[in-house]
């Protein structure tokens, strides 16, 4: 069953002579629980596509359906709620809130929603992320790897249907990278979450179910990998 459906997605920046097509008529579907890697050279449109899938940036044309719902048919407020409840975003530079500690950063989307975080669920997640001991540390008091775990925790905490990760290991050493990918794989397996990961690392891509290669805003290749 397809969870995500992308139809003729186009994104253009600038006008006239300065017009740049970041995405050019991209269409694909992602079934529920699939772990998808998006690769491609710089400027191929990977991050743009991820942002559009996450409800962060509106496409110039085309549609994105998540679980049958037209994402961009919603107003801005509902789009924010969509981001809060249905997607989890992971960035290369973590984008944590410096004044909130690890636990507060993780629970932030739920707090925004006016819901009380489930303490048991939080404890389990902190355990899984191996940052239980550092739950009350501020981002500045955490290592890069720990900050990325917090960022993953924030993406996972509301149990969204899709996790979108933009080079989640791009800023980490190999040991931390491996741990983060294992964590994401475990989450994918245990919670049956759909994951779309942008990466430059071929090893990471090969650990996914499927690899889409983007070039000049178009899908140049789309293949199943099957090694897990």
């Amino acid at each position, binding site marked *: 069953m397809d969870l995500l459906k992308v139809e003729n997605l186009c994104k253009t920046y600038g006008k006239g002579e300065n017009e740049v097509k970041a995405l050019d008529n991209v269409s694909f579907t992602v079934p529920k629980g699939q772990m998808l890697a998006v690769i491609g050279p710089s400027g191929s449109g990977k991050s*743009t596509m991820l*942002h559009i899938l*996450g409800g*962060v*940036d509106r496409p110039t044309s085309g549609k994105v359906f998540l679980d049958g719902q037209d994402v961009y048919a919603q107003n*801005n*407020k509902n789009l*924010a*709620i*969509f*981001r*809060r*409840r249905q997607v989890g*975003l992971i*960035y*290369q*530079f973590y*984008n*944590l*809130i*410096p*004044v*909130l*500690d690890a636990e507060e950063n993780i629970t*932030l*989307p739920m*707090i*925004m*929603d006016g819901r009380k975080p489930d303490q048991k669920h939080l404890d389990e997640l902190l355990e899984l992320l191996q940052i239980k001991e550092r739950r009350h540390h*501020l*981002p*500045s*008091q955490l290592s890069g790897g720990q900050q990325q775990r917090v960022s993953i925790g*924030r993406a996972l905490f509301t149990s969204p249907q899709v996790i979108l990760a933009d080079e989640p290991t791009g800023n980490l050493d190999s040991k931390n990278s491996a741990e983060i990918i294992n964590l994401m794989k475990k989450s994918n397996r245990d919670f049956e979450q759909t994951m779309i990961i942008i990466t430059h690392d071929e090893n990471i891509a090969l650990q996914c179910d499927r690899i889409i290669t983007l070039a000049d805003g178009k899908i140049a290749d789309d293949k199943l990998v099957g090694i897990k």
Partner: protein
Amino acid sequence: MKFEMLLARKYIFSQKRHTLLTICSIVIAVTLMALLFTGYSTLQSCMREAAYAQAPYHMRFTDITAEQALKLSRLPEVESYKKASMPDKTIRLDIMLKPKSIGDIHTYVEDVANRELGMDYSKLEKWREGHLDVNYDLVERDLIDDNGRKDRVQLYCIFFVFVIMIALTLRLIIDTAFEISSKEREQQFGVLQSVGATPKQIVGIMTMEGIMLSVVGIPIGLAVGTAVAYIAFRKIAASGIADVFYFGDKADEVLKFNANPIMLAMAAVVSIAWVLFSAYGTGMRVIKKSPVEAISARDNNVKKVRRHTLMGMIFGWTGKLTSRNARRQPKRYIITILSLTLSLSLFAGVGSTIEAVTNFEEAIFAADADSDMYISTEYSIFDKTGYRPIVEKLEKSKYFSHIYIDHGINAFTKNKARMAITYVNEDSYNRAFFGKPPISYDELKNSGGYILVTDDEVYSGLDSIELTFNSLNMAEKYIEEYNQKVKEDPESYLFDKGSLYMDFIHKASEDGTLKRDASNVFKIVKTCPVPVNENSYMYSDQDQNDYYAGNLIATIDQYEETENTMFGNFDYGISIECDLAHPRYHMPAIEFINANKDMQLSFDFFYEVHNIRTITSAFSIASNFITVLIALVAIVNMINIISTGIINRQSELASMECVGMTKWQLYKMAVIEGLQYTIFGAAGAIVLCILMIFATEQFLIAVQIMTPEGVGSLIKISTPTIRILGATGFTLLVSIAAAIVPLKRMQKTSLIDRIRSVE
């Protein structure tokens, strides 16, 4: 320096919005500083002019010979002199000295008198009386003697301490402007460093930018500040303050606006110093980040946060975030709160003090002077129609709208309670009942009786009452003595027999010769309660030691029917009170009274009230300017800190939006941020005002101006509190605007662009 200049120029012209903001901030800060310096020099100048106007010389020699005058005028210290020949052929010489120190003026004067006029030191002191007048005030203000110089240095020191205090707060305005501008270029500075610019060069770019912007901002600020000071000066001068403090003929000439170039230059120097410090400081902050950190523009170096905050408890997670954000720049946060506290309490304090002074003044004058003038007359209490020609004259002059006559004596009831008997004319009758008399004046007149005004039920329903008069029949010896005194010095006692009369009453009371035995039965036509008004002069006193049972009121025509025995055997003049028909009749009315020999102005309440109101209004104008000045600093600081905070957190706020924060949640956070400043500022101001009121009351009790029972009567705590809350509302609106405007502008940039500024 070429590189720094080039980059500074490029940034100034490419970042027009920031350039404008920085120039505006410099202009505001310099304007306030110029206002302060010009105000100070104008005050000095006015005081000097007042000293000169009182006596237009440093030294005046009188009763000297032409030869002595010549010697004195040739003294090396003399700058100019005026010589006048007197009718007795002597010379009067006014000398102005050169503006350089002559040491101690007393020693100098003695030396000159000894050397040039041949006066012996031992005889100098006696000789000076009638021969030499030194205008010490002018000598001090023109810095001619050492004491004046010392005093001036002390004054400058006090002024500069004040300037430094204001300057520290004002610098924040410029500081934040530079920071906003530099924050958006942080990545560029990182890039510059990564391609080889040294930290010194980066600091140099910022400093150079400061110098260039100063060239534009400081002259504008000085010009605007001088203009504002001039407007304030004209306003204060127009309030008539000169007439209050200076009693000479040319009061207006004493007030001179003085934009002293040296003071303005000092204001400019202080301003340049701030701009350079701010620019340099911002440069130093920029280079604290490594090029990589600057390029990635990450700002997550928060080391410690407060877990439980008041704002968090009230507003939940948005309040918590707001509170934590404020502590990212604790120094600036505290300074902004403090300047808000100070400006709010100043605003409320000044307003409440003026209100209290006005109330106090009105209470005093309403209780003691419910008319404009007291006129003493010489008509005898035994001459029952003696007042008529005086009243006619006053009425004919057309200067007066109301003329009040109330002539009363004290009497006693059978049970020894006091009762005042007062005979009044129509104006006075209406005034006694605050325009609502129980029966009309004519009805009372026609009845031939009295109105009994009392709150004591014992006297209600009476048709008549028998009273024994306090009629002050004195022994012959005192009357003789009294008459003798008046005869010896008729001029002194012409209109002032009252105090002499009181002296004799005391004497007669002490030796028991004062008789109070006359009595009469008074017909009561109406009984009514004492008018409920705090300014009522009628008695409703329940003091057991001196119990006043009430007041008997009758018309002045009724007084004409009374027996002279009621008033004892002692004659004295009676006062008439008047209200001016129009304030412009004040001077003509005084001239009219002075021109009439049978009356004398004994008290001019109109003048007193006018003076107090003029002082209050001048104080109000001056203090309002200072309040506006400090409020402006506080508000600009608050706007800067809130908007800088939002601009600095651009990427962070975008991150929150990415994980689901709605626009309204974002705005709510911004509103709470503004609320945080205003709540703490207002709370601080209220506490400060309460402390100030408490301290003032304790001081007044200590110096015995106020009794402990009077605590709370000076200024009620609610008065400044209401003002603070009003001002807080305005501040809150400004703070919300300061947060919403950058947020709105930020919303125009896509979330992606804001997020990318992080990546």
